[in-house]
């Protein structure tokens, strides 16, 4: 059976990526200088699908505006998930737009096209549901899987720590029968998980579900520091669409880089960027569209999203910025490691200098303790020291 349709679940907010997801869904966060979702669609285009259905929900205008009606000549249709009621509920929203067998991908993971090919092969002519499985040290953070040969024997949505080592990579192939299966699966806590429908098939009906072991690239954005890792992977594996002037150094033709600036690959400098004299940018850094790096600034192992302005003399290490962030002169982000509190849990020793969400303004001379999370539209007065979490719209003065 040919898999002509690709369905991508792109409606999730990404609570653990707050405050970066204040104005856009998680799949629209940057991996390198392009949204994660673009990399996902690249994978589908490589798999030669004829059409793409994007299931959108939270802040969907951002997805629709970015991709419009087609991506790399493959037409896109949009299915709207009005409320976030689980991955199964999300897929069910695509029902009216899919007729034949389909590939289903999560919109928040950069994966190698090889994974999709493997899943398509396992789906093969029999048309049994298939999913990709991989080893992961933090299986408890993702959905876990048990395999017997090429058959999945168990799927666990929220596993206990240490019990599992295989995870569900979020790449599936289904026939349209999945829609009936989903419609017939009872909700749990008001939510309908895709894995619940698959588990029912395995446990209640005893029908086969194929699991494909893979160890290809898989980079997932679950936490803010993941964005630094995902960007590093993207830069090292040639997934940047700007021209490459030397090995892993990508500079958009419309960017203006002062001749006295130093660019250290791997690095991508997006369209319309300006980099001032004696600035040092890179390695493992992505500058989104229209980013300004002032004279004598240093930016390394950081992801700066569109319209960010870095003032002269600033130092940013392991820093993530949202859109339209303004960091005044001599902003200092010395870099991780840090203990970061997110979603009622503390994550220890994470490499994260600071996160500045969309439209934060730092007036100048601001210093960020490692792991600082500054909420959208916050204003930091001159000379402020920020640590921990700063709420949205706050006005912080010394």
């Amino acid at each position, binding site marked *: 059976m040919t898999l002509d349709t690709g369905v991508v679940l792109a409606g999730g907010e990404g609570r653990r990526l707050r405050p970066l997801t204040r104005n856009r869904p998680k799949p629209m966060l940057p991996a390198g200088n392009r949204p994660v979702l673009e990399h996902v669609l690249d994978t589908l285009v490589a798999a030669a699908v004829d059409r793409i259905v994007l299931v959108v929900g939270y802040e969907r205008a951002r997805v629709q*505006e970015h991709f419009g009606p087609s991506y790399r000549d493959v037409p896109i249709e949009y299915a709207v998930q009005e409320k976030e009621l689980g991955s199964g509920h999300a897929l069910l929203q695509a029902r009216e737009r899919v007729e034949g067998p389909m590939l289903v991908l999560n919109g928040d993971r950069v994966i190698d096209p090889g994974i999709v090919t493997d899943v398509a092969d396992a789906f093969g002519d029999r048309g049994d549901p298939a999913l990709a499985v991989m080893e992961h040290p933090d299986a408890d953070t993702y959905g876990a899987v048990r395999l017997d040969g090429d058959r999945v024997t168990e799927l666990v949505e929220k596993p206990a720590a240490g019990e599992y080592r295989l995870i569900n990579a979020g790449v599936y192939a289904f026939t349209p029968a999945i829609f009936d299966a989903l419609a017939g699966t009872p909700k749990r806590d008001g939510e309908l998980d895709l894995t619940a429908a698959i588990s029912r098939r395995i446990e209640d009906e005893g029908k086969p579900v194929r699991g494909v072991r893979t160890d290809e690239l898989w980079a997932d954005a679950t936490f803010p520091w993941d964005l630094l890792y995902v960007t590093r992977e993207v830069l090292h594996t040639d997934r940047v669409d700007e021209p490459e002037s030397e090995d892993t150094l990508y500079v958009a033709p419309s960017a203006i880089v002062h001749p006295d600036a130093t660019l250290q690959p791997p690095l991508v400098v997006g369209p*319309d960027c*300006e980099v001032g004299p004696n600035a040092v940018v890179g390695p493992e850094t992505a500058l989104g569209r229209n980013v300004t790096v002032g004279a004598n600034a240093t930016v390394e192992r950081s992801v700066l999203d569109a319209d960010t302005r870095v003032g002269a003399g600033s130092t940013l290490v392991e820093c993530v910025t949202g859109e339209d962030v303004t960091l005044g002169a001599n902003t200092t982000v010395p870099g991780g490691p840090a203990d970061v509190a997110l979603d009622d849990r503390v994550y220890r020793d994470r490499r994260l200098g600071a996160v500045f969400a969309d439209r934060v303004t730092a007036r100048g001379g601001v210093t960020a303790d490692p792991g600082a999370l500054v909420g959208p539209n916050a204003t930091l007065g001159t000379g402020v020291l920020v640590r921990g979490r700063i709420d949205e719209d706050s006005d912080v003065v010394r």
Partner: protein
Amino acid sequence: MCGIIACVGRGDDTLDTLVHGLSKLDYRGYDSAGVALTGSGDDTVEVVKRQGQLDALRRVLETARADGAEPRGTVGMAHTRWSTHGAPSDANAHPHTDCTGRVAVVHNGIIENYQALRDELAANGHEFRSETDTEVIPHLIEELFDGPEYDPADPEPAIREAVARLEGSFAVVVSVAGVETLFGARQDNPLVLGTSPRDAGSAGGERSEPRAGATYLASDVPAFRAFTDRVVYLENGEFARIDAEGWTVTGTDGEVVQTSVETVDWDPEDTGKSGYDHFMLKEIHEQPRALRQCLQGRVDEMGGRVTLDVDVDPERVQFVACGTSYHAALYGAELFRQAGVPAQAFLASEYATSPPPVDDALVIGVTQSGETADTLSALREARSRGVRTLACTNTVGSTAARECDEVLYIRSGPEIGVAATKTFAAQQTALNALALSVAQERRRAGDVRDSLSALRELPGDVQAVLDESNAEALAEEFVGAPSYFFIGRGVHFPVALEGALKLKEISYGHAEGFASGELKHGPLALVTDETPVFAVVTGDGPLATKTIGNVKEVESRDAPVVAVTDGRSKVERYADHVLEIPEAPPRTAAVLANVQLQLVAYHVADRLGRPIDKPRNLAKSVTVE
């Protein structure tokens, strides 16, 4: 103002190709639509046409298809109409035919001598079935076909002669029964030719099959862009004949004209709605991207320079424009004056018929489509007086772009919603850059540097407005108000006018924009406790203070006041509601304030269930005077 699509060489897909083309053109008019097809051996051209939007025609064609009676042929043309002569009706819809049904014509424009021609033809026994000016064309051709010198093997000379007798503005395409060739001519109305040569179908990679050659004529590229990206822009007075093998373009003298085939680079899918309820909302949300495209490569903040591909250093400037573009022109004129260049904006229709002294002015025509008849006339009037002209337009290869000495493209991509949104923002931005490029020649470098950083921040600031706007909730509050008023000063005066125009166009509500200081000189009599007043106030300078004074005048009449503000002037103390925009210098704040007002207009109209993308009586680009 109408849309034409015609094709030869699409075989059995001819009808589908035409209907697809119409669907891409209906922004040009939509009160009736029709198709005409013929093939070898036919005695008459088969015509189907209907009053109403394209769906009405589609339904008729579907019913006919179910009965096996749909029009068939390998040569076809179609038309979507926006009435000028004669009410919208089945009879007045195009295509029009002669008495015998042998000749069919679609036409865009106005035939000024149609009454004389009609009287003459009627006296010769021709029977007219419509009230249109267009119908004289097929009858005129029929008359010439019946003449002694007519050779049925070659209808071209008769058609050329008929076209030569027409006065006025037109783009016409003529089909003759049984003839597998179409004939087209243009005078002051757009007509473009598209060509997909035999075996050139490999653009989509292995999936697409090589196809036979096909040739198209249309009012605008989107009509055939799904089939080819190779385009020939016809000039005034040129005559084209197209068939499956290719095309020939000749001048009025009959000599073959060497044409150049251009490749259009935008994607046909750009015209899809991609999940939005309306094109207008999609285009409002596209503004950050449109402005980035507009500014790309033009602003060098580090170097402190604007680089535009136009060569002007005017002593004085006159703008000519209509509608929304006129508001952009008012804004542009204000910026030129701030740069020390005397500048005025004129309504193009007035300028064309009662022009002011031009002296040595640079005349700038602002027109999204580049085909706006009034603006073209004004520009031609200016050229006839020997001054330089500049077109500020969105449409590459448009008449304005080709006729003017210089072109400044706003680069915002195709706009489908009739109510201009992203193109207005891009016009403001492009004119802003143009004014800066003139200012930098005059060594006002400090101003230029500040403004450059504001320009680079503009796309992100527009995104901020889109992300944070409370316009929807506010619109809900004011749906159904008897009148809406908009006030602003300086660069915000055109924003007030544009805010009112947008609301009028799509909600059909009554709305007026005023210069803030003008309100008390009359319009204040209309202000009541039921008429919301939108005041655009940014910064905390003297203009803001004065506008706040005007806000107080309104407030004391108990009118609900909505302040569109960056918060610096504390106007919110006197306002009932606030639409907030990021802090920015006045010239870019005007772009941001307008985005809030676009959203208000959209949500008011949406609540009222109006056909937002196709408001009644309006057309996207108005190519009649």
